[in-house]
């Protein structure tokens, strides 16, 4: 009897300890691929920054084994990363050569999972890591707001912290609703037409893109929805200037641009052809001035939405202060205060 109880106790202990050893689970990435991982993953390499940001809001920073050396404006983000992950500076940095990941450096890290940005299951880096190195790859390709929520859920599965992921999703949705509860009822014809300006100036965000959704939730409508051309459905279509003038957007929103300011678009000699566009005439040209705080495809998406909403619908959001929201948001999401990044 004693032996039977002892064995039963051992079996129970083993069963409870199973997740720590890793339990195979399947999840579907943004490209529809099925990825089998041991949950929780303890050695993850992030070659895409937005998923890294999401992971830090959900998972254990110790599980981040290495990161890509392709972090955009890394000097701006380093204090944050070092606050949420004190070992960030010592983590491996995986390089790229002409866009191709350094496979040897990656293999040397011996990760359980690699998370990267890929637009197709045939993407070279994805295939090289998955097929050549035999390491499971989770492909990120965010093209909608729902993709962002799915990313939070998936990071919960990867880290084995599903409940925390649910909390993070709820926090994000709560902040988003502060805007969408106001903008939901606005009819399309009353929404300002918004031209999203990527750094290539005449490259914009198409109908099938995440920013198309964000602009709508912020109370505007992407001007590409009025362009009768198949190119308008692309994720990043180039627009002829004459077409843009005929579409006549009410608001121009610039992604962070080191070479250009809204004032250049309004009064610059190189933009003389833009002067009859409603947005320019009304001086309604805005810029995402901080690509870290207002990165729409990171867990900071609600802050980006508020930034857009305040400029697209200034009357509806006159009382909204983003500065007042930032500290609380960082505390809820990352347990650090903003802007000092001190732990709570």
């Amino acid at each position, binding site marked *: 009897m004693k032996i039977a109880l002892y064995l039963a106790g051992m079996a129970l202990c083993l069963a409870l300890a199973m997740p720590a050893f890793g339990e195979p689970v399947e999840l579907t990435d943004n490209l529809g691929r099925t990825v089998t991982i041991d949950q929780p993953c303890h050695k993850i390499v992030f070659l895409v920054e937005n998923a890294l940001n999401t992971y830090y809001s959900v998972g254990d920073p110790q599980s981040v084994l290495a990161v890509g050396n392709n972090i955009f404006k890394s000097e701006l983000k380093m204090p944050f990363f070092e606050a949420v992950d004190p070992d960030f500076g010592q983590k491996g940095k995986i390089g790229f050569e002409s*866009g191709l990941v350094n496979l040897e450096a990656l293999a040397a890290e011996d990760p359980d999972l690699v998370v990267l940005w890929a637009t197709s299951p045939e993407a070279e880096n994805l295939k090289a890591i998955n097929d050549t190195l035999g390491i499971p790859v989770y492909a990120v390709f965010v093209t909608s707001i729902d993709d962002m929520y799915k990313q939070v859920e998936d990071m919960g599965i990867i880290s084995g912290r599903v409940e925390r992921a649910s909390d993070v999703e709820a926090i994000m949705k709560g902040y988003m609703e502060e805007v969408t509860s106001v903008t939901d009822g606005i009819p399309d014809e009353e929404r300002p037409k918004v031209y999203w300006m990527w750094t290539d100036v*005449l490259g914009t965000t198409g109908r099938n893109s995440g920013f198309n959704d964000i602009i709508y939730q912020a109370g505007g409508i992407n001007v590409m929805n009025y362009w009768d*051309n198949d*190119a308008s459905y692309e994720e990043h279509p180039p627009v*002829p200037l*004459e*077409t843009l003038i005929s579409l006549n957007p009410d608001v121009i929103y610039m992604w962070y641009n080191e070479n250009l300011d809204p004032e250049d678009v309004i009064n610059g*000699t190189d933009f003389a*052809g833009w*002067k009859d566009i409603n947005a320019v005439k009304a001086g309604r040209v805005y810029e995402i001035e901080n690509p870290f705080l207002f990165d729409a495809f990171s867990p900071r998406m609600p802050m980006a939405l508020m930034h857009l909403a305040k400029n697209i619908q200034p009357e509806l959001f006159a009382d909204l202060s983003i500065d007042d929201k930032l500290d609380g948001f960082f505390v809820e999401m990352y347990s650090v205060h903003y802007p000092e990044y001190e732990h709570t």
Partner: protein
Amino acid sequence: MKIEYGRRWQIAVHNSSFNYKGMLIGLFLLLPIPAFLISMMIGTFPLTPGEIVGLMLARLGMDLGYPSVYETVIFQVRLPRVLMAMMVGSILSVSGAAFQGIFRNPLVSPYILGLSSGAAFGAALSLGVIHWLPVQISAFLFSLIAVGAAYFMATTKGKTPVVSLVLSGVIISAVFSALLAIVQIAVDEKSLQSIVFWMMGSMNTASWSKLESSLPLALAGCLGILILRWRLNILALGDEEALSVGMNPEKYKAIFVVAAALAASSAVAVAGIIGLVGLIVPHMLRMIFGPDHRVLIPLSITFGAAFMVLVDDLARAALGFEIPVGIITTLIGAPFFAYLLRATRAGGWE
């Protein structure tokens, strides 16, 4: 049979009466006018030919009550773009013709001395690393540095042999290509995208300010080549022949290289790298009119302008969205070049 046909055509033009040849030359010299008018009618902003003519008349003092946006589209968007395309086409063609004459080689383009690689590196440096440095200025400076380096590398004891010049151009191109690769590896994805787009060549950022900044050097370079064009006929015979008629080949080689490089650099700086125009336009003209640079140079200016602006019309209006013009010039230029090689035995050089 095609070879015979191509040669017969060329021989026919040369052997024809003066009036026929003169008429054909006159036609090619006037080509920019219909090309300009056609191009002004093409665009994605809905304007009828009548409205465009009306807007032009409005500039002469007749107010026909058109909305100001019409005037903006025509005079701030379409006109500078059409003029810039014509200017770039002229420059690349005339500098291509001049380089082909100096090098006595049909495979030469304005980019032979590393100009395009230097410009691409300069642009990449500005777009990806030194953001305060304007792209146009950086591309221009580095294209001239590349050409200057190639020229000085090839010059020994006051002489610049053509073979040395070609080889040094190849080496300098390789060096700047390697430097460009380093920048491309180092920069983020968005900068890399901008660099690649710039390298494809495009007129979509044309403006009066860009036109004004590049026009003085373009004019100076083209006029210099135009005025001295008859000397290219002598240079094309070789250094010894040039010396035998009392011409200093080194001096004129240097003048032509500087003039062509200045003009081509100013074009590349505003439009990016547009491939094959500087190679195929002089070839087309040489095939029809023969190798006399007295005729070839002015025709390169006018036909190059007409060719480039019509190709740019395709780039901006064929599909309703913008295609980098460098892609179209290459897609049109490559098969045409293949045809030339087969039809005219090295494009009229033999």
